[in-house]
């Protein structure tokens, strides 16, 4: 994983640790925390509420908020992503800095940036394999998040990298964006894959889309 890894024995040890971690995660990921399921659990437990150890009183509770969230001047990025499967950047007319994720104005010059279409290809700056997360991402672990510098941009964007072998994702690796067929106008509408796995994941997306229709 790093330049300083040791013998094959150590590599195997690491593999075993990863296998064990996978098993533990699988045990915990019993299912998604569906609103319905939570309500059922709360209802079931409310009947049994009592003073524990006669010292304190604990109740079951939850906290839900709904939004109609505006992307404001970031909207062109999400609109292009949603409608046209394109990654947009924003270029400062004064210093020439290309932002991706985009900004409507340059944070250095305060000039209004110009929208430009960027490539769907980029390079990994740094990456992380995530193993312990909250319930909404349980079923996806282990997954890789990485900062990716899109060709033509000066900044790196955080995005998911999907690969048949998560261990091969490394800084300097060339990656390409795959857009989901069912998009919602969110960052999760696309992800990156190692360039040589692009065709495979494109087929997977198509299969998923056909399965749904």
């Amino acid at each position: 994983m790093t330049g300083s890894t040791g013998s094959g024995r150590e590599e195997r040890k690491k593999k075993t640790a990863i296998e064990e971690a996978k098993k533990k995660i699988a045990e915990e990921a019993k299912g998604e925390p569906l609103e319905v399921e939570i309500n059922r659990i709360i209802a079931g437990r409310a009947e049994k509420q009592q003073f524990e150890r006669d010292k304190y009183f604990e109740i079951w509770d939850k906290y839900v908020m709904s939004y109609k969230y505006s992307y404001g001047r970031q909207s062109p990025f999400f609109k292009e992503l949603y409608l046209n499967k394109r990654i947009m950047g924003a270029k400062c007319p004064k210093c020439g800095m290309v932002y991706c994720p985009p900004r409507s104005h340059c944070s250095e010059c305060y000039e209004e940036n110009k929208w430009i279409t960027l490539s769907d290809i980029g390079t990994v700056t740094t990456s992380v394999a995530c193993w312990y997360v909250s319930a909404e991402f349980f079923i996806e672990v282990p997954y890789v998040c990485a900062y990716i510098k899109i060709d033509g941009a000066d900044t790196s964007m955080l995005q998911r990298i999907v690969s048949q072998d998560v261990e091969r994702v490394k800084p300097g690796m060339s990656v390409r964006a795959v857009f989901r067929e069912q998009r919602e106008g969110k960052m999760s509408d696309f992800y990156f894959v190692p360039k040589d796995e692009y065709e495979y994941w494109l087929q997977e997306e198509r299969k998923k889309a056909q399965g749904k229709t």
Partner: protein
Amino acid sequence: MPERVAVVGFGVTRFAARHPNATYFELAFDAVKGALGDAGLTTKDVDAAVYGVYNDLFERQFMQDVLIHDYLGLYGKPGVRVTTGGSTGGYAFREAYLTVASGLHDVVLCVGAEKCADCFDYVVGKPTPEVVKAIAYSADMTYEFPSGMYAASSYALLARAHMDKYGTTEEQAAKVSVKNHKNAILNPIAQSPMELTVEEVMKSRMIAYPFKMLDCCLYTEGAAALILATEKKAKRITDTPIWVKGIGAANDKAFTGFRSTTDKMGKYGDIADLRSHYAAAEAAYKMAGITDPIHQLDLAEIHDAFSFTELQAYEAMRFCPPGGAGKFIDDGIPERAGTLPCTVSGGLIGCGHAVGATGIMQTGEVVMQLREEAGKKQVPVKKGNGLVHSIGGPGSCYCTVAVLGRDKEKGRK
């Protein structure tokens, strides 16, 4: 000229995984009662208060500060809340310092409290996933959170970049975990005192590569309080005032991917270097007149959110050159018996991370050490100076550094 400011009182609750029999405002109350007792003051003597409480979702309550303020009986006096992620304690201390240094108030209370384990994942049947989620909402919700970014992953990206740039190893980071768990054994308030081996840390469950479970700090419930006063008041209150000699703070770009060697903070490095930590330390050292930290400090309390973060902080605090942190721990310099003991409280890994309270607890630790009242965990004090480091935010963007020092001639009450 700003007023000279001293810390004259410290109080702290036990740092525990759960305080089922206390609410956040009750924990804050307990810490304040301790601090007032330590200083020999009552609330009548307090002119203003600063509160450090990080997370509204943890507490199931917005604006917790007014409720704590009421509970403490401080109505009629000003109070303000600071919330800056993991560095909430550090920034709250800075606000309290400013309130006194400006000459606006003479005696200011600085309180941090956090109660996170009320978050609960019904499906898994334990708090952890919901606690992790409540923290994750600190990441940018527009571009970054949807990819599945959590606090550990955010800091792991920085660690990974450090490994790639400087060749830092997982074993070197594990040594920090071993050291801090061990330091916690001597700390009566600590949540996770343990005798560990590097191998055990390496074998612990994977969280976000390169972080294993024992590389990560704990989530903790607890509170801590400090009392700050002007020079005139401090000398009346105590014979052992601990002076705030230097305060530095800086925030780097919260979008970690925007950090580059060509921007305004480029002189401190790139994504692999905690640039806000460098900038904060530089400012604090300049104010305190510290030019050779390793020989002018007796101890440093580092915000070891993750083992690698402490390594990266050694470099930013100028204890060793960039890339030298691995060797620094290999040489045993930050160990309890080393040249510069680091995180003798056990830090976030050993003592616990009660977010809003953490920076205040660590500041209190340095105060008690400089007073030579730290009990079993006391380290030798020869130079009379200590450092407190407090960090937070996505990609460790927030950082505050405080240099504390005692009078040359130490008298006892």
